[in-house]
Each structure stands twice: as C-alpha cells, then as structure tokens.
C-alpha cells in the first residue's frame, strides 16, 4: 500500500531514472528513428479516433456506435503510450508511462468485451448486397401486386360498364315490350 501511495504521489517525479538518451548507448540515428516513429504512430493513432468520431457524428444511424467510441478510446490510449515513449528520451516519467499503459490495457480489454457482446448482433445485420436483394424482392412483389390491382381495377371497371350497358339494354327491351302491349290493348279496345 505504501508502494502505491508513493507511486501516485510521485507520478510526475523523474528523479529515479535518467532520460532515455542517457540510458544505454543510443546513436543519434537510432534515437531519432525511435522518437520519430513513436511520434508518427501517436499522430496517426490520434487521427483515427477523430475520423471515427466525425463519421459517427455525421452518420447518425451507425449501429453499435458505443463500440466505435470504445475503439476510438483504445486507439487514442495506444497512441499515448507511443507519445510518452518518445517523451521519455528527455523526460523519464516512467510512473506516468505505467499509468498510461494500464489505462490502455483496461480500455483494450473493455473494447474486446464490448466486441464479443456486439458480434452476435452484428452478424444479424444485413450487408448492402443482402439489403439490395430484399429491396429488389419487395419491389418485384409490389410490382406484381400493383399489376394484379390494375387488372382487378380493369376487371371491375369493365364489369361496371357491362352492367350499365345490360341495364340500358334490358330497360330498352322492356320499354319496347311495354309499348307493344299498350298498342295491343289499344287495338283490342278497338
């Protein structure tokens, strides 16, 4: 417990270690290659979460966006370990480095657990090709239904027109018969 208290109360204390440049025998090329690479990795690891967050912000319907956020935090933490590794060449903050590494480990495992939880659900997500297939099938179904409806409409319209004609035709025939009967009655009455 004493160790822990000492550790955190001296988080930024660098007295116990020399800067990395003075630890071992570094050639200028080797040291700067190390530093440049670490800084480049940190830069890239810093940009990836920015791009991811911008993507989530712009495309609001992204499923499982919490995983994206965790993934962003994981990459950001990984980047910080590289940044501190480069800084240690001048400022040997090994305690701070250990804390950053610990945070990175926690975030990494958190991301893994989240991924395990999400994967079964993600497997059920439709791919664009599957979605297109579904859309095409539904479109074909709708076209077929529409065609049937048009045929039915045409059939009903024809039936209605037929009915009208039939009524007129029979009415005319009945009127004719009626006229003939009236004529016959008149003729019989003399």
């Amino acid at each position, binding site marked *: 417990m004493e160790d822990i208290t000492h550790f955190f109360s001296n988080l930024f204390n660098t007295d116990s270690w020399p800067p990395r440049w003075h630890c071992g025998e570094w050639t200028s090329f080797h040291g700067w290659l190390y530093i440049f690479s670490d800084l480049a990795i940190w830069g890239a690891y810093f940009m990836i979460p920015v791009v991811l967050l911008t993507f989530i912000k712009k495309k609001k319907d992204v499923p499982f966006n919490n995983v994206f956020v965790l993934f962003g935090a994981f990459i950001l933490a990984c980047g910080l370990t590289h940044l501190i590794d480069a800084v240690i060449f001048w400022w040997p903050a090994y305690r701070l480095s250990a804390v950053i590494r610990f945070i990175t480990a926690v975030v990494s495992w958190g991301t893994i657990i989240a991924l395990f939880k999400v994967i079964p659900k993600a497997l059920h997500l439709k791919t664009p090709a599957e979605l297109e297939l579904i859309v095409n099938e539904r479109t074909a179904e709708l076209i077929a239904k529409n065609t049937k409806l048009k045929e039915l409409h045409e059939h009903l319209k*024809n039936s209605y027109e*037929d009915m009208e*004609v*039939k009524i*007129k*035709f*029979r009415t*005319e*025939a009945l009127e004719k018969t009626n006229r003939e009967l009236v004529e016959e009655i008149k003729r019989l009455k003399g």
Partner: protein
Amino acid sequence: MKNIGLHEITEEHLLGEWHVENRFNITNDTSSIFSKNNRLIFEQNSYLAINGLNVSGEWSVSMKTELIYNPLLTFYVEKKLIAEAIITRLIISEEDYLNKKNAFVLTLYFTNGLELILNKKS
C-alpha cells in the same frame, strides 16, 4: 388477352363454331334455345344452335342505338325474331404463340337476362 373494341367487331369475328363456356341465367327462363345449347355455329346469314335438337335460322349483326354502342345480334327462325342479344365483350388471346393460334371469348347478353360466354379457336 386483348379486348376487341366494340366498333371493330365485324361479322368475320363471329363466323365459326363457338362452344358455350359458361351461362348465367338470372331469370331461370329456359324457353329459349340459348338457355340450353352447347354450341353455336355462325355462318354467312345463318346460324345453328346445337343442343341435341338443332335450331337453325338467320342472324344479323348491327349497331343498336345511340344509347348503346354494343353490336346487336338478332336471331330469326323462319323470318320470326326469336332473340336479341348485345355483344358485351370480345376478347382475343394468343394461346399458342408459335403456331399463332388465337382463341376468342365472346360474351352475349340477351334481352331476357341470359348471359352466354362462348369460346372459339381459330
């Protein structure tokens, strides 16, 4: 399937042997030969309705009145008018595209309420 326009129907369309496909007799009037026949043969100026006992006579087709645009069929036996019917529909369907055989469906509606649906293969 294509509806032949009522004004396009000619005597040529009607000539030939028609089979009764369906019959709707709402009045249950069975006195007419057309309430019983199973075939109807149209020839130039004469027809033959077949139902065991054959009935033959003359027929003509004309446009009815200004109110009804359907062609009117009139059937006579020995110069006596026995029935009048309008053509409510004449449908052509290409049954066999390779042999170009057409099937026709003719719907007749009689003054007594009888409806006959006939078919003919060319």
